């Protein structure tokens, strides 16, 4: 695992890389690497057995610089074009979780020629009537000064999920972890607070452009981005087949069910050509 920094247009972007082979860009979510964890977790490491996983931290997250005042999702997409160019990535696999999934989908509909294969895990980004995305900001305000019970209930299968207790303990935790969480929320507040709340109403109608092989993977008990959003991605992405549900996981499937989530991705990569021969079943 290597932690590096690249510069794009004078801004620092923090990157973690793991594995060899075809490049796979992983865009992180909230309960995820860069969002709360400083390093790759078992999920990312396992994914690294099947591809060269490159995970940049979103603007303002972890050690990455902010984009400046008043930016929005479009600026983030342009930012990522710069990141891809800086890394010399012309064509690559793109995987996104949570808000990272939203960014991945926005990139895929605009630049389908650059995205070899697309995988979304608990991705926000779509407007689905009657299935509102959970309010991560309100639930990040602790109860009784420190309790994050309802935030864990929103992000995990249940409020005492071990990964939830590890990264969202009901106590003032490690300052660096608290800072990462804060920076992630601040990033979220720039791209997703204003209505539309973590979605782009016109994205659904643009999904037809993302014709590359696509997988849609969802924690079966996701309360942050309800499974109906996964169904909507499956319906809209021309090459997506079924919604792959991860049993025993909520929104934070990569943290909660690392092997099952990574295996679903690896299987997708293996069956859609290209990286298949590198898949390890160990």
């Amino acid at each position, binding site marked *: 695992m290597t932690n590096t920094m690249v510069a794009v247009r004078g801004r620092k972007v923090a990157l973690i890389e793991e594995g060899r082979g075809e490049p796979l860009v992983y865009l992180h979510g909230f309960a995820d690497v860069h969002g709360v964890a400083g390093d790759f977790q078992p999920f990312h490491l396992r994914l690294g057995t099947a591809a060269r996983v490159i995970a940049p931290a979103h603007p303002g997250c972890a050690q990455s610089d902010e984009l400046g005042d*008043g930016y929005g999702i479009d600026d983030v997409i342009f930012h990522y074009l710069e990141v891809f160019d800086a890394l010399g990535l012309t064509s690559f696999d793109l995987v996104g979780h949570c808000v990272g999934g939203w960014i991945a989908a926005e990139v895929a509909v605009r630049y389908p020629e650059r995205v070899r294969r697309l995988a979304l895990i608990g991705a926000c980004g779509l407007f689905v009537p009657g299935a509102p995305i959970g309010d991560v900001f309100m639930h990040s*305000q*602790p109860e009784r000064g420190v309790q994050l019970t309802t935030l864990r209930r929103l992000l995990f299968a249940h409020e005492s999920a071990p990964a939830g207790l590890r990264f969202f303990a009901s106590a003032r935790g490690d300052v660096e972890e608290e800072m990462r969480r*804060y920076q992630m929320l601040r990033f979220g507040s720039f791209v997703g*607070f204003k209505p539309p709340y973590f979605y782009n109403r016109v994205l659904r109608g643009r999904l037809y452009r993302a014709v590359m092989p696509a997988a849609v993977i969802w924690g079966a008990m996701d309360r942050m981005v309800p499974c109906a959003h996964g169904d909507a991605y499956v319906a809209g992405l021309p090459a997506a087949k079924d919604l792959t549900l991860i049993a025993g996981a909520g929104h934070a499937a990569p943290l909660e069910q690392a092997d099952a989530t990574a295996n679903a991705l690896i299987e997708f990569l293996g069956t859609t050509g290209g990286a298949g021969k590198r898949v390890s079943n160990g």
Partner: protein
Amino acid sequence: MTKPVQLYCWHFMSYPYLPADFDERYDTGWVTVPNRLWDAERSRGLYQEYIDQLAYADEIGFDGMVLNEHHQNIYGLMPSPNLIAAALSQRTRRGKIVILGNLLPLHLNPLRMAEEYAMLDNMSDGRLIAGFAPGSGPETFNYDVPSAPSREQFWEAVDLIHRAWTEDGPFAWEGRHYPLRYVNPWPRPTQQPHPPVWIPSSRSTETLVNIAKRGYCYFLSSRSHGSETAKSQAQFAKVLEDQGDRFDPFRMGILMSAHVGESDAQAQDEAKEGVWYFLKNCLKGHLRREGRMLTAGPGIPYIPPSEFRSYLKFSDPSAPLLGDAEDWSDLQRAQSIIVGGPDTVYRRIMDIVEHAKCGHLLIQFHMGNMPDALVRKSMTLFAQEVAPRLREHSAKLFGRHFPEMERSAEMAQ
């Protein structure tokens, strides 16, 4: 003589008819507090009662009346303070009407604020003090206003309004958030070049610089007045000096709550119910650890990460907030809600003024579900027995500390 402290009566207009077991049954008084608790029948005449109390403040010699904007909560029933200000403009003749303030990022277009404030300034014959505020945590949830980008939006709105008042129109405003091709408001304000502008802030240096360089008045948005208040004053004075300006007491205002009774014991006895209704119910969701506090924190991430890091370093999440006060001595330590006989109230307010060197005192008399007669009695005792002493001694104090104010007052005579 140097100008004495200016005494304003601040009314929050809280909802007074909550069930007695509200605190046990509901986790917040803000944003999600169920509005089926609103009792339409009992609430008939409630706004009238509150407006009458403010008009009474004007009658008995307060220097002004203060209103502010809140949404979807039991703490303050003024989603539109401008409506109440319009009523006051027709009920009162003398005191300033302070709106502290309109929450600019919540409204579609700042030009509307420039227009409404100009109307109010005309309707009140130049008595408006125009406050602008960005809105705090609950408001970002109430109106889905993203907290981080809204700061930039706020200052653009302030500058647009200022220019709309002071520059001849029509002109084009080429802002990022509010581009307008024709800015040309009718009416223009009565006060020229523009009504005084007050801006609430905690202690963010960035905000203080923004206030100072525009020549505005800083309202310290804190309900407690320990040593932090004097530190805020010193910080603002330093910011003003860095801008080539100079602090005087009328560049700064503070908020406090008071209840005056005939004696300390009587004051406590009669204020008890209203004060604890206010602390336990109205502050739940705002300045109480109990329940979920929505005013500031990681879910309202508008401060830069570096400031959040020092907040993490210096704050204690288990420390009690004002609303967690359990008895009178807790309240006294917070130096926020001052309850006592005239001597006690005078002494404790004067103590704050001596430390904070602050000229605008914005005082809340109506707390929680306090009955009308009691609020008026407290205001009367304040006006008759506390205010004259505060005026006399603050004028001397300001004269000693700010001799240049004294000189300019003499020259004016």
